[in-house]
């Protein structure tokens, strides 16, 4: 006669009770697993992107300076470089040229970057793997690009960037500075933005403040702001999608509550019989507890394991259409697998605890049935 013996006995009874309505309970587990699966998938995906950003973007420029014109981005004059160089703490400043190119043949948007150290000759490009994938069929390996002057530049594809680096390079087209200026008709003396490096990393905020002071029509963006962007944007705890999924989860829990409150006559009778046979109220509640645990724990495990497989082995295919949106070019998501005890326990508490609670609490009334009601049945 032991406590664990009692738990196991009651668990036995609960399991055989669940097996008696196999179909219904299987459907319940499947449905709850699906909800957990969706929730866990979003959590894994968001967390993975967050970590990827943190891992990779720590080499982002320390400060990027943009110029604004009536609130919109404008080209930044290279004369600003001299002014910024004068700010104490600035190690180096240089202009960057980059922009977007829309390819009408396939509707894709590419990011074009003029590389001042472009290793190949003029008239060639280095493209990202995503660009290569979406290339309209061409003769040879030439990519015609329509300049803003109305003419065409026929760029020979010199190199394709690796598929491993797609998460940063998928849509890139790299070319020489001269080609860039010709393509977009960008005059000399201006750039898209300026990038700075600062001698002392702790001075970054001060330098940024100074820049705004001396150049009021600019907007500096620091590396920490870049990193924080990805931290916030993909913080699943505040996301829109999570809000929806938690709603789904809650709906499920409410359903469980409703089911437990409206115990069928048969279930009520069974509880009455148990009471009549000497089970105490606490024994019945314990049975309900195990019932909740069995369903929610199974769903939790299956949902989380399937979600991991979905996101990290199948590249989150189910979310593809939602994530792709209107984009034509969608990077091959080879995501960094993340799974931490924190994530797992959050998911556990979100799925197992409320469901078990929702199974026990409404059963209270039935559990406190007077045993002698059974005599009269």
């Amino acid at each position, binding site marked *: 006669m032991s406590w664990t*013996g009692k738990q196991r006995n009651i668990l036995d009874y609960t399991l*055989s009770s669940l097996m*008696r309505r196999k179909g219904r309970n299987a459907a319940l587990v499947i449905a709850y697993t699906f909800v957990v699966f969706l929730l866990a998938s979003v959590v894994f995906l968001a967390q993975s992107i967050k970590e990827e950003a943190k891992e990779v973007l720590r080499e982002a420029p320390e400060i990027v300076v943009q110029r604004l014109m009536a609130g919109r981005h404008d080209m930044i004059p290279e004369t600003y470089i001299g002014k910024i160089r004068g700010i104490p703490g600035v190690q180096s400043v240089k202009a960057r040229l980059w922009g977007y190119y829309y390819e009408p043949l396939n509707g894709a948007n590419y990011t074009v970057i003029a590389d001042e150290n472009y290793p190949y000759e003029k008239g060639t490009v280095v493209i990202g793997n995503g660009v290569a994938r979406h290339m309209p069929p061409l003769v040879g390996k030439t990519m015609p690009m329509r300049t803003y002057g109305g003419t065409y530049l026929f760029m020979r594809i010199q190199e394709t960037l690796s598929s491993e680096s797609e998460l940063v390079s998928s849509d890139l087209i790299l070319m020489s500075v001269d080609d860039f200026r010709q393509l977009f008709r960008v005059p000399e003396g201006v750039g898209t933005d300026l990038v700075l490096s600062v001698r002392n990393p702790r001075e970054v905020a001060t330098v940024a403040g100074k820049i705004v002071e001396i150049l009021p029509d600019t907007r500096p963006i620091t590396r920490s702001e870049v990193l924080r962007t990805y931290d916030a944007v993909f913080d699943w705890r505040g996301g829109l999608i999570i809000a929806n999924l938690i709603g789904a989860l809650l709906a499920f829990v409410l359903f469980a509550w409703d089911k437990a409150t409206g115990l069928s006559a048969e279930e009520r009778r069974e509880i009455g019989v148990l009471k009549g*046979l000497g089970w*105490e109220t606490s024994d019945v509640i314990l049975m309900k507890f195990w019932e909740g645990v069995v369903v929610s724990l199974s769903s939790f495990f299956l949902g989380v394991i399937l979600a991991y497989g979905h996101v990290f082995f199948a590249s989150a295919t189910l979310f593809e259409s939602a994530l792709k949106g209107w984009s034509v070019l969608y990077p091959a998501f080879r995501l960094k697998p993340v799974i931490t005890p924190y994530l797992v326990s959050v998911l556990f508490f979100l799925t197992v605890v409320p469901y078990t609670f929702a199974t026990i609490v409404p059963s209270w009334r039935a559990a406190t049935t*007077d045993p002698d009601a059974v*005599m009269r049945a």
Partner: protein
Amino acid sequence: MARIELKDIRKVFNAGKPNEFCALEGITATIEPGRTTVLKGPSGSGKTTLLSILGCMARPTSGRIFLGEREITSLPERFLTEIRRKAFGFIFQQFHLVKGLSALENVMIPAYPLGEGREALKTRAMGLLGRFEVDRKASSNVEWLSGGEAQRVAIARALINDPAALIADEPTAHLDSRLSREFMEIVKRLGSNGTTVIIASHDPLVYESDSVAEVIPMRDGKVLREEAR
């Protein structure tokens, strides 16, 4: 098992409401241990109510109950349940075997909360089923049992926790004469083992059986007069 004494028991249902109903009135009786007692009377006489009070399943509205020297009338729920579990095994009128489970499992159910090891419990349950000659049907689901077999399983279940007394409510209501007589044979065997048996019945096959030591006739919630046999 000690003797049970009832002193002036009164039970009222729905007190204060328009459907107030007095099921028992002025019940004074003694149930001697080790013997078979029958509460005899037609339906509505309060037998079932008295049975549930005797078996610590319900409390009287007024009056006193003694289990041996100990008064149990106003014992807290916890203790009452404990006594009920240890002292009494119940056979309900409808048997109330759990459908979808085997006979063996049904017999084991009352013992689950007591934490006994599964294997030991199984052995005991099989022993009981064997005692009442339904061990062959141990793994059959109870829906497939005949009336007589179901009854024996119900008896086995009532005895799984080794109670001192067995309480049965109209046990022969759904049985033919042969099975009814068989039931009373089992009662005789239990009686000779020293088990107290309390039966509520209006079946002559029960109250006229020679295994019965005492009959308490009831009508309209009152005891008519004690008939010693």
